[in-house]
């Protein structure tokens, strides 16, 4: 709520844009940014190069009769969802407990943890992949060549996003006070974490999970250069033989990520309202 009052000032003093200026700027930008996506939609409805429109490419994708030609494609989509699930698992089982532990017992390490978690921004996927290639030759020997092993690397890629989502929630919850209160009422530590801390951190944990799913579904660099098949590499491959299906899948994937993030946004505002 403090943000709203902060903004009231500039508006009153005429330093924020007027309504007309605002909607002109937002309108023009929105139209320019909608054009490529609408073009993609228009393309997915084109009937070959004849200039007519058809929904055949949309219905064809979901037609069981086409299950065979699209089998590899659906397999790749399945791979992506498995990767997303394993990556979320890594965030929940490796990152989250560490963040709790550091928050409660090692306040001095907080800076270090934050630093580690934002390294993947400075060391982007295209650089990481050079060093991951030899690492994965070892991983394949231990875990086999299943696509899901790629999730180990994806867990690293999502660190900055997942860390930020959980940390912003952690900062707003008096973790130490809550756990001490629960402990003094006789709760064991598993109960404290499971029934006191996690319910309070639900918003941050959910946001971290969703953003992880969104990142993994959009990931291309590692999968393509480590020769694994996921949604994005499959879309690029299918675009050479059936560009309409590629367009449809691209639209669906973007829409899905948009909805996921919209849910995170709603979670955030609902949470803010209840805490203030």
């Amino acid at each position, binding site marked *: 709520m403090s943000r709203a009052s902060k903004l009231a000032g500039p508006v009153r003093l005429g330093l924020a*844009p007027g309504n007309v200026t605002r909607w002109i700027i937002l309108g023009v*930008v929105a139209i320019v940014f909608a054009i490529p996506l609408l073009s993609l939609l228009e393309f997915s409805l084109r009937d070959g190069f004849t200039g007519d429109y058809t929904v055949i490419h949309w219905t064809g994708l979901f037609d069981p009769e086409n299950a065979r030609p699209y089998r590899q494609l659906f397999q790749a989509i399945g791979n992506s969802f498995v990767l997303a699930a394993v990556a979320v698992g890594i965030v929940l089982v490796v990152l989250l407990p560490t963040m709790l532990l550091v928050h409660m017992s090692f306040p001095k390490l907080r800076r270090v943890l934050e630093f580690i978690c934002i390294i993947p921004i400075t060391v982007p996927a295209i650089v990481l992949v*050079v*060093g991951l290639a030899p690492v994965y030759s070892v991983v394949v020997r231990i875990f086999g060549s299943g696509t899901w092993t790629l999730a180990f690397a994806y867990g690293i890629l999502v660190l900055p996003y997942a860390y930020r989502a959980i940390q912003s929630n952690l900062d707003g919850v008096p973790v130490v006070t809550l756990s001490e209160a629960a402990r003094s009422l006789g709760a064991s530590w598993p109960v404290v974490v499971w029934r006191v801390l996690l319910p309070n951190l639900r918003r941050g944990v959910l946001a971290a999970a969703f953003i992880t799913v969104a990142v993994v579904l959009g990931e291309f660099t590692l999968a393509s250069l480590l020769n694994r098949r996921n949604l994005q590499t499959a879309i690029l491959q299918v675009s050479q033989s059936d560009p309409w299906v590629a367009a449809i899948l691209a639209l669906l994937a973007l829409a899905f990520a948009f909805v996921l993030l919209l849910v995170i946004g709603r979670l955030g*505002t609902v949470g803010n309202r209840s805490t203030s």
Partner: protein
Amino acid sequence: MTVADTAALVADAAGETPRRHPVAGPAPLRRRGGLAKYLGLTPFALYVLLFLAIPTVLAVGTGFFSEDGSFTFANILGIFEPAVLATFGSSFWVSAVTAVAGALVGALVCYAMLGTKASGALRTIVDSATSVLAQFGGVMLAFAFIAAIGGQGLITLWLIDTVGVNIHENGVWLYQVPGLLPVYFYFQVPLMIITFLPALEGLKSQWAEANATLGGTRWTYWTRIAGPVLAPSFIGSLLLLFANAFSSYATAAALISQGSQIVPLQIRSALISETVLGRENMAGALALGMIVVMVVVMWGYSVLAARTSRWQR
């Protein structure tokens, strides 16, 4: 490791609180508790070591070795070959142009968002849309631009029909380096909105009030107060955008299937090339070159971000 295991570790970690062990001597317990606490950090430490630290060291290190494993500067010197330098040059100018254009348009959108409700529907939609377009587009955005301004694109055909202008008169440039500009611009603007909006919202209304009370105008407010306060944040965001474009691979890979005109594509060809021996080590050298640029840019970003946070306390 499950949540229960963690909880047990956390429980051990709390062994030093006297409430739990009122009788036992505190010193040995604290030591044991301390050890268990550190054990709780090992899964994450191990994971980061295996999949972040080692790959980074390998990526940077392989550049210093030849394919038979002996130490050499040949790959590093390879960066300074004119052909490779040219790709760094292309990467630089593509990143710089899209960063500046994206930052200006993004800042304009942030300005338009000023004064909207933080929990309103407009803000929620803009937040989600910017995140999707800035961070998860890659290949899909390349398709969208092929559908819009490719050889048979909607806009291309429309422009030919209505104004008679063929934007691809001298050949289709979308699959060349210039083709990266519109697509990169398309994900730079949303990233600018994500990073710059918080700074713009950090402007305190008291400053505007003080400006008004002292007889300042809208102009003096933006040039003498808001401008200087926002400058580090704006330049910091600009650097982040530059880094973002510089390290982006998916869009370029989807658009440019032949050749290696920018550094990430050069890494691609070094990695997948089977015809030229020892190219994998060249990939290491290129990765090193890229990391040097990224570290310098991100260092600048963090310095400027620290300056910005001074105002936001």
